[in-house]
């Protein structure tokens, strides 16, 4: 049915273009590059028109359009230097360059650069604080992608790893344990403070390792289960961790305060490099003393962490372990008959995913200067899973896109959409009033995500940017009927 709908739409297009004198046969005869360029030009022109009429026009839109054209039209993947296919790095590096320079061209003194155009409906470009959140969630989604995308294990409790990471930062970079007094490269600590105060870099590593260990501990009893059963058990663990966080101010009735209960752990020390590195290398001593520019430092640091995650993701995907993960996803029985130890391989996927969830959680805790139990509800697990599904399971680009888009909507996008809708159609709207009470769009957040996911599942179940393999699986289905008897697993 969908295929027919697509065919109908394309036929309609050709009829419309035919009115303009464009003939299909002639179009097909054009060189591929010309066709590609024409199509891209058309889309960019439509985009510019939309910005002009529905957004706020600024001339800076033109150089931005030029960058898009320059990136999309040439076939960079064909470029070779001395027989090595270096071309495939061009687009990733360009995207990275755009991201790295974002704080410079898109933000000035803590607000969005007023020289930039405003998009229709979505309004201004994301603020720096939103960008930090997006980067952190890209990292978490990539972590979950190890489990869901590569190994094909449905994990509904990923928030447990996020919580574990955040609380590790809380324990080792705050005054939570007031009886202890241990400082290792502490940043921004006033004299006389007690507790563990470790440098953020050490804390990130510790959070990753601690969370990976938790991942292994959760994985060992649960990864024997298949499919739905595993999902339910991970769901349970995802609920247990925040409950421990919420009630951990009197652990097992011993009076030991582990998590400070509903109050959460705050403040957590800010990141920084300390005075020595500041004077000798020029790195910021303490991110918080940077004032309005502190979000830039936070963003760049998050970007480095994301790069690290992407690097590990791609290296592992192409390794012996990555092949084993994909083999397990495709057919568990055949995989084990090929000598792949199921438990160990799945546990590695879990531990790797947990590691990055933990690092991301710790970093976000340092950014927010606190770890609060309210951050770790079940809906965050589903939210991160949605990022992976929306973008395209198993594909690094897809997951990055999904995470950026959904986290942007969460932090800023829906607000902007609401403001635009109310401004145009709300009470006293500039166009006409469709409703008479201000519409609170972010209130319907999860409803909107639900609709997005349903639409994506209907029209593009493999995700927006799927890996070619995953796309094939969605078309063909994997044949993975259980052959084991329960005790043999």
């Amino acid at each position, binding site marked *: 049915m969908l295929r027919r709908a697509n065919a109908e739409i394309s036929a309609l297009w050709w009829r419309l273009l035919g009115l303009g004198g464009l003939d299909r046969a002639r179009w097909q005869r054009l060189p591929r590059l010309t066709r590609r360029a024409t199509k891209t030009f058309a889309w960019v022109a439509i985009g510019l028109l939309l910005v002009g009429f529905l957004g706020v026009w600024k001339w800076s839109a033109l150089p931005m359009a030029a960058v898009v054209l320059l990136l999309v039209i040439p076939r960079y993947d064909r470029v070779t230097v001395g027989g090595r296919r270096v071309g495939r790095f061009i687009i990733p590096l360009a995207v990275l360059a755009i991201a790295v320079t974002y704080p410079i061209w898109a933000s000035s003194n803590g607000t969005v650069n007023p020289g930039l155009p405003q998009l229709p409906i979505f309004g201004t470009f994301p603020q720096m604080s939103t960008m930090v959140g997006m980067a952190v969630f890209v990292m978490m989604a990539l972590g979950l992608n190890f489990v869901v995308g590569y190994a094909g294990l449905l994990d509904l409790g990923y928030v447990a790893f996020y919580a574990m990471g955040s609380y590790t930062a809380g324990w080792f970079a705050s005054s939570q344990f007031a009886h202890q007094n241990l400082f290792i490269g502490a940043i921004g600590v006033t004299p006389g403070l007690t507790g563990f105060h470790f440098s953020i870099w050490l804390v990130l590593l510790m959070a990753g390792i601690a969370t990976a260990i938790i991942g292994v501990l959760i994985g060992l009893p649960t990864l024997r289960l298949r499919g739905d059963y595993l999902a339910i058990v991970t769901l349970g663990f995802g609920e247990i961790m925040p409950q421990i966080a919420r009630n951990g101010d009197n652990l097992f009735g011993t009076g030991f305060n582990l998590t400070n209960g509903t109050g959460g752990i705050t403040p957590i020390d800010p990141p920084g490099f300390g005075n020595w590195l500041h004077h000798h290398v020029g790195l910021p001593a303490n991110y918080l003393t940077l004032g309005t520019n502190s979000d830039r430092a936070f963003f760049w640091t998050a970007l480095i962490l994301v790069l690290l995650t992407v690097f590990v993701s791609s290296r592992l995907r192409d390794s012996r372990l990555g092949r*084993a993960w994909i083999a397990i996803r495709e057919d568990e029985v055949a995989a084990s008959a090929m000598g792949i130890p199921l438990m160990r391989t799945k546990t590695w996927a879990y531990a790797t995913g947990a590691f990055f969830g933990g690092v991301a959680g710790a970093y976000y805790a340092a950014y927010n200067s606190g770890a609060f139990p309210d951050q770790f509800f079940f809906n965050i697990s589903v939210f991160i899973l949605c990022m992976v599904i929306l973008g395209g399971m198993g594909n690094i680009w897809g997951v990055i896109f999904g995470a950026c888009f959904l986290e942007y909507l969460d932090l800023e996008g829906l607000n902007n959409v609401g403001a635009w809708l109310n401004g145009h159609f709300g009470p006293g709207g500039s166009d006409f009033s469709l409703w008479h009470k201000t519409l609170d769009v972010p209130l319907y957040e999860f409803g909107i995500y639900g609709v997005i996911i349903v639409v994506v599942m209907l029209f593009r179940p493999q995700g927006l940017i799927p890996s070619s393999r995953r796309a094939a699986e969605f078309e063909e289905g994997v044949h993975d009927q259980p052959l084991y008897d329960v005790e043999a697993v």
Partner: protein
Amino acid sequence: MADALLETVSLRKEFGGLVAVDDVDFVVPAGAIVSLIGPNGAGKTTFFNMLTGVYKPTVGRVVFEGRDMTGKPPHAFTHRGIGRTFQNIRLFQNMTALENVLVGMHTRIKGNLFEAIARTPRIRREEERARGHARELLEYSGLQRKDGVVGRNLSYGDQRRLEVARALATEPKLLLLDEPTAGMNPQETAEFTSFVSRLREDRGLTVLLIEHDMRVVMGVSDRVTVLDYGEKIAEGTPSEIQKNDRVIEAYLGSAAVSLK
């Protein structure tokens, strides 16, 4: 038997009240090609699954190279040197032929997670070696120039061949083939039969076959074992089996014996 590569001692499997395999003592001598035959539902595949660790036997032991393997997980069997194919082809359908074979080499490639991330020179060498070896195996199995084709796009015969190549990649001492010629036409079957003999000559493999096609069984095996209702009813050379009354009865009914 001193030169037994694989041995089962009163191997038994029950599913609830059903006895699928009933106290089977069975020996595969090193270097032999042994066939396991029997009517449908005789328990051949269940028996196979116990030999590869997919099922745990209810009673009895599986001994490979003098080592008791009972209760070990499937990957341990593969690691020790038992490779297998499946009756209903179980390739990794969305991986290329080369990747399928590389997965088969899993236990023979060294390198842990951290080395893979750092892509150390050792890992590079291992990967290079593995890829080269995988291409050789594909060629050996008659899949030249098919390395980049994903499993599900291969023809049926090629899928069967790829399953064997993948099993060979585990560097087995004993290769278990579960109805490898099912669905093949006579010419493909003949090619496959000679391929199995070649496996023993070129690679010194011991082969255990489940087979329905009697031409294959009689043409290639040194020994034949017959299962019926989970019990071993006969064992011997192909010509002995052809004359065995119990075997004829199991396949054709008791009337066939009295006709003889």
